[in-house]
């Protein structure tokens, strides 16, 4: 009995690996070790097959066609919306808007909700560990409206909530916060951040680009007002993502782009807009990738996020333990609650040199500022070496990383 429990709780990483064809390839004559999963994940065969199946068998434009293919495509497209609703436990399918990805989701909120609601003297709060995609849209908005952008400071990769409380006031209209830091892996206490913001009368947008693949997302329990994530970081295709918004907020927001799909009736004098969620989906959507998002989300849910998380947490601990034993290695960010991201620097060595030499051994890591320059600035470093782990990574691969680093250091120092 105990044994069977263990089996169900443990992920069979070797069986999982077989489902990802890209992991079989060689890079520079060596088997690929892919540790750039926070940038994008590799795709399982079911996702690749589903994309081929869509274009092979039922490619058609959605929603208005009366023929069979259009009906099939529409049904699949809308089924994927339902799958996304379920994945983040939104209250209704009207609250699920298809976007190109997290970046577009944030921009949509800044452009429509922001332009309508933000006025001169208002304040928007973000954090020091934001990705540029959760900084720049708000900078643009604040510049246009004469509003002020403020940042919750962090220390060693942990947000300083006391400082956040001091920033909140009646001027605060929105708090937009990253759920999980892409550069460090820190899991931020969004529930508390949201509660405090709501007490101050502000809305909260959560950037779920990094969290949605690792954590169980329940937007209703979290009580966020907006939540955005990208398919390609959840083992799905690129170019498709989801914006969740509370229904009453979405209903009051003006449209994002004008065009087909988003209208009810158009005359030269006046246009009435379509109901949610179509009001925000102008033009022919990215149907193929949207359809396949369902396959990816179901793939993850079927394996189980808890099982995946256990595997990744164990792997991160294993990697961290070995990394800190290498001379000069300093892990950046010491948050207790982290997802499987090891971000580190090495004394007297530029991250780029490490990245090049690891690639030479078929090991893919990310080096640089990770589109989070304000955060790097806080740490006083130009960038880090980031190994971000996924469900299909193994301890043997971590060993290869360590050997790769040892060899690189021998060459560089």
């Amino acid at each position, binding site marked *: 009995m105990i044994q069977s429990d263990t089996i169900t709780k443990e992920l069979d990483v070797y069986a999982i690996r077989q489902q990802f064809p890209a992991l079989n390839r060689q890079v520079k004559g060596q088997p690929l070790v892919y540790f750039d999963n926070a940038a994008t994940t590799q795709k399982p065969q079911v996702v690749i097959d589903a994309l081929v199946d869509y274009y092979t068998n039922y490619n058609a434009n959605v929603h208005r066609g009366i023929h069979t293919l259009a009906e099939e495509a529409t049904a699949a497209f809308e089924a994927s919306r339902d799958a996304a609703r379920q994945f983040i436990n939104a209250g209704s399918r009207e609250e699920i808007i298809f976007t190109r990805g997290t970046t577009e989701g944030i921009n949509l909120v800044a452009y429509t909700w922001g332009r309508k609601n933000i006025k001169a003297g208002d304040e928007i709060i973000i954090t020091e560990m934001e990705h540029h995609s959760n900084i720049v849209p708000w900078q643009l908005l604040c510049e246009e409206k004469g509003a002020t952008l403020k940042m919750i400071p962090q220390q060693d990769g942990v947000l300083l909530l006391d400082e956040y409380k001091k920033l909140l006031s009646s001027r605060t209209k929105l708090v937009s916060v990253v759920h999980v830091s892409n550069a460090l892996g820190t899991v931020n206490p969004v529930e508390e951040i949201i509660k405090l913001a709501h007490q101050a009368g502000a809305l909260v947008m959560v950037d779920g680009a990094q969290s949605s693949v690792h954590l169980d997302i329940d937007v209703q329990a979290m009580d966020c007002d907006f939540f955005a994530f990208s398919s390609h970081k959840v083992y799905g295709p690129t170019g498709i993502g989801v914006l969740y918004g509370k229904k009453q907020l979405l209903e009051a927001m003006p449209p994002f782009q004008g065009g087909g799909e988003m209208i009810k009736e158009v005359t030269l004098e006046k246009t009435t807009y379509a109901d949610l969620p179509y009001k925000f989906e102008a033009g022919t959507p990215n149907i193929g990738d949207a359809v396949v998002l369902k396959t990816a989300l179901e793939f993850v849910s079927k394996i189980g996020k808890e099982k995946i998380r256990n595997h990744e947490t164990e792997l991160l601990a294993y990697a961290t333990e070995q990394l800190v034993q290498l001379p000069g290695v300093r892990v950046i960010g010491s948050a207790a609650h982290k997802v499987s991201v090891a971000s580190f620097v090495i004394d007297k060595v530029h991250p780029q*040199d490490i990245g090049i*030499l690891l690639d*030479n051994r078929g090991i893919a890591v990310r080096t640089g500022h990770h589109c989070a320059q304000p955060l790097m600035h806080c740490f006083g470093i130009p960038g880090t070496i980031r190994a971000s782990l996924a469900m299909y990574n193994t301890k043997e691969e971590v060993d290869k990383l360590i050997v790769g680093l040892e060899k690189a250091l021998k*060459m560089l120092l």
Partner: protein
Amino acid sequence: MSDQKTIQEIENEIVEEFSLFDSWDDKYEYIIDLGKKLPVLEDKHKLDENKVRGCQSTVWLVADSVDGKVIFKADSDAVIVKGLISMLIRVLSGHTPDEIIQANLGFIQKIGMTTHLAQTRSNGLLAMVKQMKNFALAYKIKNTMSHGERSAETKSN
């Protein structure tokens, strides 16, 4: 006749040197060694305006014109990039603006370093080559103009 080697001759030399290496590790070890040996750029040149944009690492590049030839000096905080710059300097520095502008730099591909030429933000070799050619072009224009001024003066005399 000058006994100075042409850009093409230097490129050929580098290709030949690299042909002796059996493995990528050997190639990179050599490039790292070149990087370590490249003279350090004086701090007075390490200014924002001398930074080459488009590199993940910081690269400073300065140029001077001596007797109609362009002399390059450069530095970087990443050693592999420094090694690559060192090769570019060896090939291009000390030649006339026209020679530099026309250089095709085929050696980069021949020694297998094309990946560093890719149009991405993560590596700056392409940005460096562009910047070196821009300097050469600027000196060419400057030389033509001062030459033009001189001829104008001669005429008025």
